[in-house]
């Protein structure tokens, strides 16, 4: 068996989600390779080796600088054709999802998405997929190869192996239609903390905060815990907090180690984006809020009282 992992990068590092998938793949299959696609990405090969790639393919080309999918489809599909990989895995993101969809069509290869785990069963790869609003967990498989899988963010933790992968340069041949979409402008905010997909701890706020100023106490708690602040559709629509922090059906799907929901009722649209969090703590005034049904620890009370106290206690403990 051999496995290829698509390694998305942003700025000067490989995305944590991609490193997590790489580590998991390496644990399942020692013949795991990673592929880096972009301009000036060769420097990232060492990082890929450390997190489990026995081989690192580097497709370095100025034409691939912009994070657009179709040139990446050309590179990944070409590698699969040349090297006969059995599995190709992606950590879900806007870019990786489009790349995976394109590779599936190019190779007529089955793609399973929303995977929260991967296991070996009798020499076959089985994916665990959360489906239909996470109301059912489906064991999914593939007929024929290669098997393509898109893994939900936060499902696997990056593990350092310490070994160095063998680096191989890939010559890039793009299809004519792959350069017909071009990046005109990118307005990427400088992040001050971890993004909500990358954070191990999320402090999330909903309408129960009462207004945009309510996020101040959440930011303090997140800073004390070393996490990031997330939000709901309702508060983003009201303009209280940026869209980039929105969790749920029309926002992001997250699986942090700890999710603290503050003033969030737990509507299904939000629930589908966060219920695979490892531990869920929630604080809500309404004892009947649905979020308590899927929380590990629930507090019925006033978040404006509880959160600042908790922040002080966390700071005290860490001091």
């Amino acid at each position, binding site marked *: 068996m051999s496995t290829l992992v698509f390694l998305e990068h942003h700025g000067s590092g490989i995305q944590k989600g991609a490193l997590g998938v790489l580590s998991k793949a390496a644990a399942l299959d020692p013949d795991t390779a990673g592929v880096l696609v972009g301009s000036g990405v060769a420097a990232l090969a060492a990082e890929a080796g450390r997190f489990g790639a026995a081989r690192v393919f580097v497709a370095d080309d100025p034409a691939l600088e912009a994070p657009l999918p179709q040139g990446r489809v050309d590179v990944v599909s070409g590698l699969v054709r040349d090297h006969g990989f059995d599995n190709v895995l992606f950590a879900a993101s806007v870019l990786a999802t489009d790349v995976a969809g394109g590779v599936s*069509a190019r190779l007529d290869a089955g793609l399973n998405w929303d995977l929260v785990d991967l296991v070996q069963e009798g020499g076959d790869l089985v994916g665990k997929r959360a489906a239909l609003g996470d109301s059912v967990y489906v064991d999914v498989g593939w*007929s024929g190869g290669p098997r393509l899988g898109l893994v939900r963010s936060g499902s696997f933790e990056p593990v350092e192996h310490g070994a160095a992968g063998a680096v191989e340069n890939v010559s890039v041949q793009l299809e004519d239609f*792959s350069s017909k979409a071009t990046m005109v402008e990118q307005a990427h905010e400088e992040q001050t903390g971890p993004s909500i997909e990358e954070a191990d701890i999320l402090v999330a706020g909903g309408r129960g905060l009462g207004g945009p100023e309510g996020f101040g106490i959440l930011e303090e708690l997140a800073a004390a815990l070393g996490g990031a602040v997330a939000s709901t559709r309702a508060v983003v629509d009201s303009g209280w907090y940026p869209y980039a922090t929105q969790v749920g059906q*029309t926002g992001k799907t997250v699986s942090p180690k700890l999710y603290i929901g503050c003033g969030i009722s737990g509507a299904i649209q939000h629930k589908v984006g966060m219920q695979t969090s490892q531990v869920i703590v929630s604080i809500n005034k309404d004892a009947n809020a649905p979020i308590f049904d899927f929380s590990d620890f629930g507090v019925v009370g006033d978040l404006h009282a509880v959160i600042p106290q908790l922040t002080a206690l966390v700071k005290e403990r860490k001091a």
Partner: protein
Amino acid sequence: MRRMDPATMRVQRSGDRSLNAFDLNAVEEALRLKEAAGDGEVILLSMGPAQALDSIRKGLAMGADRAVLVADDAAAGSDLVATSHVLAKAIERESPDLVLFGQQASDSDGAVMWAAVADRLRLPVISQISELEVSGGQVTAKRQTEFGYDKIRADLPAVLSVSDAVNEPRYPSLKGIMGAKKKPQDVVSLADIGVDASRAGEAGSRTTVRALNPPPSRGDNQKIEDDGTAAQKILEFLIERKLV
């Protein structure tokens, strides 16, 4: 919410009479582009059982010109590989300037179809669009990613997916609803669009469903009323779970 049939392990689609909410954004955007251009044709395309026409009619009531439904028993159970092949063949027959998708399918939460269809059509693709402009044979789109905004330009024809932030879909007028039934609604078979049955349905699919399981239980949960000590109790819980 839809359910999965434990016998076939397929999503139960019978009795479904509503157009996917996200597709309404795509229909609305297509209508706006046509109105801005002053001419053009908006065609609705779907694959599904014949009853799906009932839900597609909402798009006709909103103002789309005609509908094409690929309805064939041999297409049931199609996964991404099979569905993208069928849709690409149906789209080729119409050779549109723009192919618009809603941001996700309501039944499977998949956000992969447009990239697969674009690859089969050998056309550029832009996804997750929140603002869209078409002029001079090009489309310029703004979209949100994990890192901020991208502005992307592509030559037409192109395949696009729009997010639900792109517009507020209109409600059909009474006149629109009355007129919808009279608009052309073409139900075609796989053979009509030149798709070999071996490339559709389960035969043409490359993924399998092996088992359905209930979601993992979260185990014991605790719920307390704040009596002034809740913060302390949360901290103790976090320490016990080794989270601080």
